[in-house]
């Protein structure tokens, strides 16, 4: 080991951070080279003085200033998790307007279902296994969607999760809620657009239409806004009319968004 290499390793040697072989090389060099020995001694003194400088603790304000935002973030996460669930709860509790002959149709369907049940029972074992498999898959997808949206993984991960959810044939409530949450809260436009695209397949569910409608006033990106309006038109969501009228007359809104809202009102 030469003088230069020895000196470059002196800090680690003083801190006993070197591997045995290198430490032995430094020790041997210092033993033989008076100049390096003198340098090492002066370094040791300086490092000792530097380490001995007392580090007094910060004031209590720091704790308060750090813990406050943590608590606020926890609250935000809880609120976001509850958001889509609240839409579903509101949809479930909303009274349905039924046609007068609907009760008879339902009764007839019930009778048919009972007859069909007899045939199905024969193949029950195989079907149950398939349903269990499907539920397990849907359950996994549901967890993925919830985690990726609420726990803010990378954009790529979140996008992948939304695409996985989109490819699920019959997703459960959690997958749908997760997609609505993505549409409402995800910071990436790409993820929000893909979430909306995934929701097209489930537009027959009232909660999906209600979710998209609830997301519309939150949305700031014109591209996503126009896509949402297209969604509401495609799904014939007449309940969107008041909100679309409001958007069409909003002077702060993007011109394309206003035009799109006007066209949607005509079509609906």
């Amino acid at each position, binding site marked *: 080991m030469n003088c230069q290499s020895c000196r470059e390793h002196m800090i680690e040697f003083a801190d006993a951070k070197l591997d045995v072989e290198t430490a032995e090389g430094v020790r041997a060099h210092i033993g033989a080279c008076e100049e390096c020995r003198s340098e090492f001694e002066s370094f040791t003194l300086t490092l000792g003085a*530097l380490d001995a400088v007392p580090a007094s603790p910060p004031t209590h304000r720091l704790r308060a*200033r750090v813990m406050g935002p943590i608590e606020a*973030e926890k609250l935000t996460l809880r609120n976001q998790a509850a958001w889509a669930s609240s839409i579903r709860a509101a949809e479930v509790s909303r009274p349905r307007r039924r046609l007068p002959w609907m009760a008879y149709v339902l009764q007839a369907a019930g009778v048919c279902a009972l007859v069909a049940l007899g045939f199905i029972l024969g193949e029950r074992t195989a079907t149950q296994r398939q349903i269990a498999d499907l539920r397990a898959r849907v359950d996994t997808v549901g967890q993925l969607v919830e985690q990726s949206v609420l726990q803010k993984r990378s954009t790529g991960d979140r996008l992948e999760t939304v695409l996985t959810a989109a490819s699920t044939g019959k997703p459960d409530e959690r997958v749908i809620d997760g997609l609505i949450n993505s549409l409402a809260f995800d910071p990436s436009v790409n993820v929000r657009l893909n979430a909306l695209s995934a929701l097209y397949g489930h537009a027959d569910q009232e909660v999906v239409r209600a979710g998209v409608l609830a997301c519309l006033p939150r949305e700031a990106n014109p591209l996503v806004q126009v896509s949402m309006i297209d969604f509401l038109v495609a799904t014939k969501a007449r309940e969107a009319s008041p909100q679309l009228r409001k958007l069409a007359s909003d002077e702060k809104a993007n011109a394309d968004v206003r035009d799109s809202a006007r066209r949607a009102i005509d079509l609906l």
Partner: protein
Amino acid sequence: MPPAPEILVPALPSGNKWRQRHAVEHEAPLSDHELMLAVRDGELDCMGELFERHHGPLFGYLTKLTGNRTAAEDISQIVFQRMLKYRHTYRNEGKFTSWMYHLARRCATDHYRKASSAPIAVDPSDLAAHADEAHSADESASSRDDHALLQRALGRLDRDDREVLLLSRLQELSFAEVAEILECSVGAARVRAHRALRTLRDHYFKMQKEPLT
């Protein structure tokens, strides 16, 4: 047959599901890395424990780096806030302390950039409580106290030199990690630290020989 001994799991705060789930699997305290992974996965309670473990050394490092307790406290706060904000960028590989000091470095750079364009607000109570630690305005009245001398010598180093030297003094960081934080090779980090130490030594020894003012 005697009854099987009961496994005692320490009581944990309610709502801390991640820790409860892992308390059975881990007898030893969770590592920083495990805590940060939990934070990334949404268990924000673990952030409190990381704060308890690291705010002292981080504040000490920043105090020496900036020479200003108020600035060190402000930067420490921003570091923890950024950890929270960018928690989803924390990866499985790597080490928590490297990541934390990497963030600290960026926050300190931002601080210096802002400070160069705006006056720094100083809390008067800090000046009263820690007057002995200030090493700018009252240097002329300094004593020969070793700590004060060393602080003054440290203040005379370039910021880059001070940074590499102070990072190398953190016991939890190897030179490879210091190099990673500084975004340079290990060899370059060693050379820079050596030069910084030599400069500090020269200032320190020179000041020791200076007559009392």
